[in-house]
């Protein structure tokens, strides 16, 4: 079995490498005298955008790992995933703090953790087939989107509350799809949903980065 998995992983690696090679070969700048990408990708604005994208997509993958372990009854794995997920939450709050100060960092972390708690509630509701608990968790999550929108809108006037709230609502919906697929023991659907949910986070990270750069152009030049 182990041998089979290694063979399968090897095949996947070859496909991935081939894909990368083709992609690089088709890149418009490949092999030409165009300036190296570092002239633009190394700016503070670009670093901010890449950093937020990384943190938010990591959030989804770790959340998906935690809910999958929870639904599978794998306690040790769940605790490890939940620990990593919380470390990600702390990192996101520090990113917020690096822009808006320690007070905002301390205010953001419990607010962010709150929605993770609601996701846990939903997962427990799904695992126990408790529709009431699921509905309550969804209602709490929808309410939470308003709080999250208000937080960012208050910190940055370039981020309208309603727009942020809608984007976070979509995050909640896409993550709910992941949990539902995991609960129905459909790995193909679960991983497709996980990619969709992680991909959606760019819709939050990019506008957030752009709004911060607009608010502090001197701090995040480029």
């Amino acid at each position, binding site marked *: 079995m182990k041998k089979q998995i290694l063979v399968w992983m090897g095949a996947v690696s070859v496909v991935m490498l081939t894909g990368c090679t083709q992609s690089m070969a088709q890149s418009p700048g490949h092999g030409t005298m165009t300036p190296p990408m570092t002239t633009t990708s190394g700016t503070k604005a670009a670093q901010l955008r890449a950093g937020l994208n990384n943190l938010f997509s990591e959030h989804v993958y770790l959340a998906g790992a935690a809910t999958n372990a929870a639904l599978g009854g794998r306690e040790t794995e769940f605790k490890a995933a939940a620990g990593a997920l919380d470390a990600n939450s702390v990192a996101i709050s520090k990113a917020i703090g690096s822009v808006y100060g320690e007070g*905002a960092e*301390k*205010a953001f972390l*419990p*607010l962010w953790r709150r929605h993770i708690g609601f996701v846990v509630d939903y997962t427990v509701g799904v695992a126990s087939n408790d529709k009431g608990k699921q509905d309550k968790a969804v209602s709490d999550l929808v309410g939470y989107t308003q709080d999250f*929108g*208000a*937080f960012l809108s*208050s910190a940055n006037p370039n981020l309208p*509350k309603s727009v942020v709230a809608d984007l976070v609502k979509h995050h909640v919906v896409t993550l709910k799809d992941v949990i539902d697929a995991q609960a129905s023991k459909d790995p193909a659907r679960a991983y497709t949903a996980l990619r969709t949910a992680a991909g959606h986070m760019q819709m939050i990270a990019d506008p957030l980065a752009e709004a911060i750069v607009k608010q502090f152009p001197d701090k995040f030049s480029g």
Partner: protein
Amino acid sequence: MGARGVIGAGSALAMVVAALVASAEPTPAVNIQVFQFQPSAIDIKPGTAITWTNRDDIEHTVTSGDPEHRTGRFDLRLPGRGTTTTVSFSEPGVYRYFCDRHPSMRGEIRVN
């Protein structure tokens, strides 16, 4: 006017000046912004009123005590941006408060 009269007039003037200075002191204010009470701790004299102003586009509350131990002294809603509420503190002491909707938001009034 004798010396006693001058001293008496001086004392009256001092009282008026003190009253004017006292009335000119701004009312202590706490802003609620980015889900924080700013400043989170404030020192006042007995008999002073504090005004909270909500700068966030969401409902907050100013609720006495802390989430684990509410004192019931005040529980005031600030339903949205621009709303205000005021509480007077006559007795010395330390008055903790929090937001009931966002329990991690905490503040403290020190009356001394």
